């Protein structure tokens, strides 16, 4: 390995290939779905003649590889094409969906990192004792609750019984930032599971690090307990956690459908669900590109972090 830059460049190139592969795979899978946009549009009136007309109007009668080539040519100019269902540009779908998704993802990550690190370090410091057992038990229990169930529970208690928070974001779709209260419950639901997995990873990493010879060595040199924990042990615990965090952010960005549906927040997940149901291939492909690029960049970032914090771990290019 000759320095981080060429390595990062190679990773980016590979990422581009991976994204292209994702797009191809998504196209193949969408083609494999039964029916097409014309059939989906026809709904409960499957008049064969009407379906044929729609199919011709949408150019669905052309072979998939031709449509993919056209679409790819557009993509090179930054044009993601237009929706089959509405005729509006795919870019506007992504733009509209991205805002709500970010509004959910950013606060979740901002709260997730300190909460998970705090809980993980706390548990590791008291390893095997009551605090550790309590924290671990609560995290495991919380992790076992599915998002939908947790969401329904939170809504029933905090919105419908106590009336502290709005039950959904209905009607705030165009101006969500002005109603932050509507985001509290969805963000809590989104936090619930990642906080558990991340805290447990950090706890394990910390426990290993605290038990390692180099920490003992640092202590022998008279460094303070906090300094040893945070400057020497924690970075080692963060390396695996960074990978997990990248996956979590990816999960948040790709649209958390359950939470979006439950709280009526029209983010990217909702756009994807509708597009798949409508067989709106250009929109699905546009989302695949966005999700693919996001995944590649996030994993690259995570690898860089790991590289920085735990160089001995080695990073595969």
């Amino acid at each position, binding site marked *: 390995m000759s320095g981080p830059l060429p390595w990062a460049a190679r990773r980016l190139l590979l990422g581009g290939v991976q994204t292209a592969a994702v797009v191809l795979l998504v196209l193949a899978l969408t083609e494999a779905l039964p029916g097409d946009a014309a059939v989906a549009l026809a709904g409960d009136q499957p008049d064969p003649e009407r379906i044929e007309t729609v199919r011709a109007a949408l150019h669905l009668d052309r072979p998939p590889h031709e449509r993919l080539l056209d679409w790819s040519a557009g993509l090179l100019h930054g044009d993601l094409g237009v929706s089959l269902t509405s005729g509006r540009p795919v870019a506007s779908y992504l733009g509209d969906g991205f805002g709500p998704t970010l509004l959910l993802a950013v606060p979740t990550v901002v709260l997730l990192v300190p909460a998970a690190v705090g809980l993980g370090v706390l548990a590791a410091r008291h390893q095997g004792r009551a605090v550790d057992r309590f924290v671990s038990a609560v995290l495991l229990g919380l992790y076992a609750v599915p998002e939908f169930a947790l969401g329904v529970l939170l809504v029933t208690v905090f919105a419908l019984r106590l009336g502290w928070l709005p*039950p959904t974001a209905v009607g705030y779709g165009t101006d969500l930032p002005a109603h932050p209260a509507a985001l509290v419950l969805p963000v809590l639901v989104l936090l619930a599971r990642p906080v558990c997995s991340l805290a447990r990873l950090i706890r394990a990493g910390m426990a290993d690090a605290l038990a390692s010879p180099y920490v003992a060595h640092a202590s022998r040199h008279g460094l303070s307990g906090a300094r040893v924990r945070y400057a020497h042990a924690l970075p080692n615990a963060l390396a695996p956690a960074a990978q997990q965090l990248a996956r979590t952010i990816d999960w948040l960005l790709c649209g958390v459908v359950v939470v979006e549906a439950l709280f009526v927040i029209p983010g990217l997940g909702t756009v994807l669900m509708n597009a798949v149901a409508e067989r709106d291939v250009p929109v699905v492909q546009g989302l695949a590109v966005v999700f693919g690029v996001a995944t590649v960049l996030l994993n690259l970032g995570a690898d860089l972090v790991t590289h920085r914090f735990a160089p001995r771990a080695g990073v595969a290019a």
Partner: protein
Amino acid sequence: MPSDERTTTATPFPGLHRRGFLAASGAAGLGTLGLTGCAGPSDTRADVDGEAGRPKRGGRLRAAFAGGGASETLDPHLSNLFADAARAKALYDKLADYGADLSAQPRLASSWEPNRTLDRWKVSLRAAVFHDGRPVTAKDVLHSYRRIADPARTFRAKASLEPVDLAASRALDARTVEFVLKRPTAEFPNVMAAFGAYVVPATARDGDFDHRPVGSGPFRLVSFAPGRSTVLRRNDAYWDGAPHLDELEFVVANEESARVNALLGGQVEYAHELNPATARAHEDGGRIRIVRLRNSAMQSFAMKTDRPPFDDRRVRQALLLVADRAELVKGALSGAGEIGNDLFGKGYEYYADALPQREQDLGRARSLLRQAGADDLRITLDTSPVAAGFTEAAAVFRDQAARAGITVEVRTGSKDTYWKDILDAGTLCCYRSGAMPIESHLSQRLLTGSTTNATKWRHPDFDTLYQQAQSTRDPRERAAVYSRMQRRLHTEGPFLIWGFADWILGTARTVRGVERQAPANTLDWARFDKVWLA
């Protein structure tokens, strides 16, 4: 447990469901002949607390519907979903619309008169103006119908307008249209009431609908964000009287639980499509009001009559006798509905209500099967979570059929393509339809040339009866012809119509004037110009 259109709680991801399509479309017309009068507003509007009182003006009502997501449009001719239909109704008018019994009632058309042979109809328009102040003219009507019928386009109402020869039809003056028809069509008013047959200005351009929609309806557009919110404002110049509400907002929430929560939490005042469990929980003195629109969705099993085993009418008759309808309504609709008698359109105009109610008779079913040489009958029943109660109905029927010695294998298909899949394939399938005139049901599904003939019911004598009805001027004689057709369908299928599901709405306790006798798809359903906030 059945729930709303796109949600069954039996699935792990309630969000992952196809949006619901409207279960009915317009038909190759019918309606009442030469009807010139219209019943005034009925007195059946919701008034649970007995606080009838005078309508109060003002306020904003927020209505939650399942919607079409980012693909929604305000083009009224593209309406496909309930949410589209409700929005189109607020912004636009049709020439006629359906009353509670699915007979055509005049709207923009103030009267209509056919010639002797029922193939030319003179339609007079009332004095109405578009939102931009220009009058609604015969030219606008013809333009709208020609746009819908454009062969290069695929608007939903196109099939309904098929009987009209639009090239020959013309404007006699600014407020009179003469429609020339390709054949006698006694129930042409139903063409004018067809789903999606809205009148738009002749100057409307395709790109304008989502930005500056100009209609003649009770509300004007304020703002539109596809898949999120549509805000409308009262049209004070509305010909049918200005709405009581200042503003109306449509919001989209595809999850039933989200619609209920929003209603309970005071975020909306009207929630469309609730499931029976929700209705039961809140029906009596709850925080919200439950409105059940009876007779909104016909529920049935459709048998394909052109292939074994259902090409033998005795097998079809046996199946009709196998069904325990009350148990199906209880099991598949959670009791939110009433039983059917193998005929479409209970309570609608021309419904043959004199025919005896069919009861389960397993003994006779077995003997019919024996006569048909089908003692050990095995059938595959196609179903899908595409509509409320479908998968449950299939399971209940499988058990009922087993008691008559019939082996039913249930096959669950994709909900995105279900209607297309069952059109030509399979032998027996779950089937549903929203409200439409009985004539539309006959012409769309049971004629040799019907485009969505899922039962492959093709009988020249049946087609002839239909044509006879369409050439009959006298409504009573015409009713007699419809009666004959329905008797035949009742005797031998092909639809085993076991029930009619309620359409369930919830409203805040302050909402008044919600019509309770309007099946979904009719004029008074989702009609917000007559609603007010107490």
